[in-house]
């Protein structure tokens, strides 16, 4: 059950996120975006404290609701960070922040039925992806797993009742792989499970180039000469 204090907090949360979202534009001043990151981090800490209190009280409904707020805050934080990285020419980190923002926004919807709809945020992030980044290629490994455990209870994943991807007492269940049998292949795909696993460079002659910036990546030999 979501108590009145959590409801009050969520109203304050919405107002503060709405304010932070005003800075989620490329044109906003970098120092103001940096300041917002500090504010959202503070908000995130407040959510975590409240969530832990609900977990201690074994109030799963409220804990999962607060998990959804946590995901919204993390999505906002990651989007703000993306703009900072774009402006400071750290394109690989900007991509990672975009992927984090998308993942957290999707997770927010799964955490609780009363989670804020994130369709608008996800649509905007998708448009930003297409506007700011070239279409990436990804690496997708295929492997067989002998044993794995549940992140919620620590039992063998197949033995417990927790379902991966679902929220339990303020945390998402994940299957933790313990023993990989065989790596079967690594494929190049355009729609991977993990969008962080992108191809980061390509080769031309003896040189390597960053796929996002097209800058030549200094080789070990270049670095030795500089030293």
């Amino acid at each position, binding site marked *: 059950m979501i108590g009145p204090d959590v409801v009050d907090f969520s109203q304050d949360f919405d107002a503060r996120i709405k304010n932070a979202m005003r800075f989620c534009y490329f044109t906003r001043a970098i120092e103001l975006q940096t300041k917002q990151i500090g504010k959202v981090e503070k908000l995130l800490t407040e959510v975590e404290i409240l969530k832990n209190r609900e977990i201690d009280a074994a109030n799963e409904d409220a804990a999962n609701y607060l998990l959804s707020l946590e995901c919204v805050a993390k999505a906002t934080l990651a989007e703000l960070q993306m703009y900072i990285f774009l402006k400071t020419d750290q394109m690989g980190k900007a991509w990672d922040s975009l992927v984090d923002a998308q993942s957290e926004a999707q997770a927010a*919807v799964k955490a609780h039925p009363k989670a804020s709809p994130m369709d608008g945020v996800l649509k905007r992030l998708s448009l930003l992806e297409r506007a700011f980044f070239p279409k990436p290629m990804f690496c*997708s490994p295929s492997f067989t797993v002998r044993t794995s455990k549940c992140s919620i209870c620590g039992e063998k994943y197949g033995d417990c*009742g927790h*379902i991966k*991807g679902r929220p339990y007492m303020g945390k998402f269940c994940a*299957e933790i792989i313990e023993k990989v*049998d065989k790596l079967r292949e690594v494929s190049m795909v355009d*729609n*991977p499970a993990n969008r962080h*696993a992108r191809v980061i460079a390509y080769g031309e002659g003896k040189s390597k180039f960053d796929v996002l910036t097209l800058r030549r990546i200094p080789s070990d030999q270049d670095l030795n000469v500089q030293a």
Partner: protein
Amino acid sequence: MAIRRVEVDNTIRKRCGELGLAEPTATAFIPTNLEQAPSVGDLVYEASTKTLRKLLRQASFAESPVEPAGASVSYLHEKAADWVAPTLFFVGSFLQQNPTILSIYVNILSNYIYDLFKGGVRVGKVKARLLIEDTPEKKLQLVEYEGDYRGIKELAKVVKELKK
């Protein structure tokens, strides 16, 4: 979205016998390499098998692994965005006694997949296979689904057709 329905040889009981596995009596997930595996320890299931087994257990749905309890088998994890359900084999005699079991399974599967892909922007394809037995002597009906997660409910229509 594509739903394919074909007849295939019923080699499941024969392969289970050769590998010393239990013969399915109700429904059973079939390892991806049942035809080729040299021994029980070489069997490989789709990664989604453990999760689906939990969902079926929670719904009191009769599915029993073909391998002996405690046998060590592997699970195939493919890190593409596609989600692949393990092939579920429906034993003919069990189906005759429980005619709604196919629809129940499709419901469990589609509810889970909806939940899984909820909020997703760049979601992958869903692949699912059902192996449906009439009698042990006859060929099996293989029903394959491949497509968007929203279309998985269409499987229910094909399943209804099969029962006619």
